[in-house]
């Protein structure tokens, strides 16, 4: 699976997934650590089938940022049945993220 870019208006629909976990990588283009994390998310998406992967540009998603208390990026949100089950803030290694997703 690959990572799909979404817009704020798609957010609610995307996270309400009854079958799989959903990961949303909240990023911005100007954020160095986000660009560092991006290829790691791509790799995870190609390896893990039990989760869907999305990217959301927070510069165009003020509502979501407010609702989910995003105060630093990259922030990775993980949802199950539409509920936030994990939040990872900052640049992480592939192993660390894998552990968070599979927990």
């Amino acid at each position: 699976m690959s990572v799909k870019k979404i817009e704020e208006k798609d957010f609610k629909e995307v996270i309400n997934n009854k079958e799989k976990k959903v990961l949303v990588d909240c990023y911005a283009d100007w954020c160095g650590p986000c660009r560092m994390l991006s290829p790691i998310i791509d790799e995870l998406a190609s390896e893990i089938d039990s989760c869907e992967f999305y990217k959301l540009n927070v510069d165009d998603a003020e509502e979501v940022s407010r609702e989910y208390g995003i105060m630093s990026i990259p922030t990775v949100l993980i949802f199950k049945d539409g509920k936030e089950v994990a939040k990872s803030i900052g640049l992480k290694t592939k192993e660390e993220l894998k552990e968070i997703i599979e927990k």
Partner: protein
Amino acid sequence: MYDIIIIGAGPAGLTAALYARRANKKVLVLEAKSYGGQIINASNVENYPGIPNISGFDLATNMYNQVKELDTEIKFETALHIDEDKKVTTNKGTYQAKAIILATGAENRKLNIPKEEEFVGKGVSYCATCDGNFFKNKVVAVVGGGNTALEDAIYLSNIAKKVYLIHRRDNFRGESRYLSDIKKKDNIEIILNSNITKLNGEDKIESIEVTDKDNNTKEISISGLFIAVGQSPKNEIFANLIKINDYGYIESEDGVHTNIEGIYVAGDTRVKTLRQLTTAVSDGSIAATTAIKELRRDE
């Protein structure tokens, strides 16, 4: 057996790898997190000669790719121990070299008060330009007394409703031109001779307790706390072997040799007067060429 193991893939470590590979040495670079070091947080680098403007991420990625193209072995593993025989133990294995270059860099210094770690990304930040935009029209505080703290306060004053600038001494170490800019801003309030002694909040920061030199405390409601109290190195794991100073920086008389023969130091992690990209890459090239020369002498 490697000729040189380089610990750290920031600008110093990558430059050392570049020089060592161009001299055809067998090199292993170990990096605990991601390549690039602190520079990846810089949205614009404008003081690297020959490149008028580049993002820190792009510059770091160029350095990384340049080194990778020379078939350099780079492993993302955390060094846990080194010994006098140049054996390096990581979280995944043990590697033997003839020489080691320590280029472990530095990271943001913490206030070391309770809840600080817990609130990172939940109102506590070490990078105003990275996270400032999430605090539009909010009340924030900056703590520190150097240029970074002053720059952060000015930057945030254009985004936030109000900025408290808190410093433990009675005057700022930072440049006076920043200070005069700050005095022109009516939404920056300066609090001197004071320390932040407590962070309050449930699942995010809501207020701070500030204590002045006469031990008077007051609570200030804020949504964001930007910590700009300098950098600190991470050299505890080498302390059994390598001489480090009271602040954790590696001591070196000539800026390249450590107290152990065949173990060299480069970049922000050593005692030095100026910690910049330019001095880091300078250190990296000197450490590699010195190591190569001394390996040759021993052969």
